[in-house]
């Protein structure tokens, strides 16, 4: 059976990949169809992830684990938003009201907790005890001061130096990383297509 899956993956990979390299009508049409299939399958996969969450937390509630009230909150939110969004629509005023006043502010606040850690971490652990830290901190200081108006007020040279760092050495470093990981991505795709990816788990 494994060979069948590998063969399917290989055929799909070749069709989608060759669409970009050759001008053959059949391939183009097939690739266009497959791309749409990909959207449909991704949508199903989203549902699968939510269903996994649903069963996990349902289990916790039925087993009355100590955390069950939290699981209940999660399930309530999941069913509420999935149900309302599906049946009354995600653009209906009712849905938009709760999206804007629940999901949006909590999402923003949860993400911004990160910022507070950076502040305390800056205070506590960012010490210049090795050349790597020193390089990172000095660069970061220029970038930070260079990106805010007050940097220009302190010294005219700051935005210039910060701009140069971003434009030249940073671009070089990022480019090395981009090329390296793109090559890694091509290799990973080839392993998948050829069925060489070791099956784990």
């Amino acid at each position, binding site marked *: 059976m494994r060979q069948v899956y590998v063969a399917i993956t290989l055929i799909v990979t070749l069709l989608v990949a060759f669409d970009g390299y050759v001008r053959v009508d059949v391939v183009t049409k097939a690739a266009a169809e497959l791309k749409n299939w990909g959207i449909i399958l991704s949508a199903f996969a989203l549902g699968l992830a939510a269903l996994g969450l649903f069963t996990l937390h349902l289990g916790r509630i039925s087993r009355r684990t100590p955390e069950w009230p939290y699981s209940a909150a*999660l399930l309530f939110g999941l069913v509420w938003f999935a149900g309302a969004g599906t049946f009354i629509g995600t653009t209906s005023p009712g849905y938009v009201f709760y999206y804007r006043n629940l999901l949006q502010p909590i999402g923003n606040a949860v993400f911004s907790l990160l910022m507070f850690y950076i502040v305390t*971490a800056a205070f506590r*652990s960012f010490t210049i005890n090795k050349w790597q*830290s020193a390089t990172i901190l000095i660069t970061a200081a220029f970038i930070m001061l260079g990106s805010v108006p007050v940097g220009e007020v302190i010294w005219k040279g700051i935005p210039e130096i910060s701009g140069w760092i971003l434009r030249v050495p940073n671009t070089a470093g990022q480019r090395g990383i981009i090329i390296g990981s793109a090559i890694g991505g*091509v290799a990973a795709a080839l392993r998948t297509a050829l069925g060489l990816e070791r099956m784990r788990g």
Partner: protein
Amino acid sequence: MVIKERILSLGLVAFMVAAMLYGLWRVKNGARAPAIRKIPALEALSEMIGRATEMGRPVHFTAGTGRLVDQNAPIMLASLDVLGKSAELCARYGSRLLVTASDPVYHAMCVDAVKTSFASSGDAEGFRSEDVRFLSDTQFAYAAGAIGLIEREKVAANVVVGSYGAEGLLLAEAGANAGAVQLAGTINMNILPFFVVACDYTLLGEEIYAAGAYLSGDGPRVSMLAAQDYAKVAVILAIVLGVVTFSVGSRAITNILDTFGK
């Protein structure tokens, strides 16, 4: 029929296919896989765990809150190799290993990896399933649990290799607070700089994949790594050649790239 501007791209793919198949063929025929260069962060692992053993305090491993279904899957899988090696060293030195996970599937894989490592080190009895814990699948609930554990158990070595959001900062900070020596690695670019500054040893981005191949000692995986290296060498040579010819006024390389290299 092949689109003219895309010939070089297709050539690059063909080159990598050839390099991969050649490497696999060689390994299959008994040739030794190429050696992987020293990865300093990994060399430190055994020293870190040895120190923890001497102090009589546990080792903690966390791969963060990455999932196995999205673009984080490769890094999560590679982290398992680092976990396997850590478990092997703990079994050998007789050190206690604590693992915390935030994805149910990943947790099952951690149990498996640790169990296997303990067994292959001849200490199957040393494996304690209650030390490999699934804490929570939500980010901050997981972080709170892991931080509590790091502080309570006074972890002496903290291995933080995987995929992280904000919890990465919290975990590294908790480890530093507990006085642990820390090894960290991730591909998330907004967390990695923090790790370099706050941790003692770091695996930089793609280096984790090399570490995984190195630790697994798996011939085919190493030869895949070699195929990527060939492609990188080709790119380096093209840049060097291009810059040299361009500097003396020849447009040969740039013309080829502009015509065939989209």
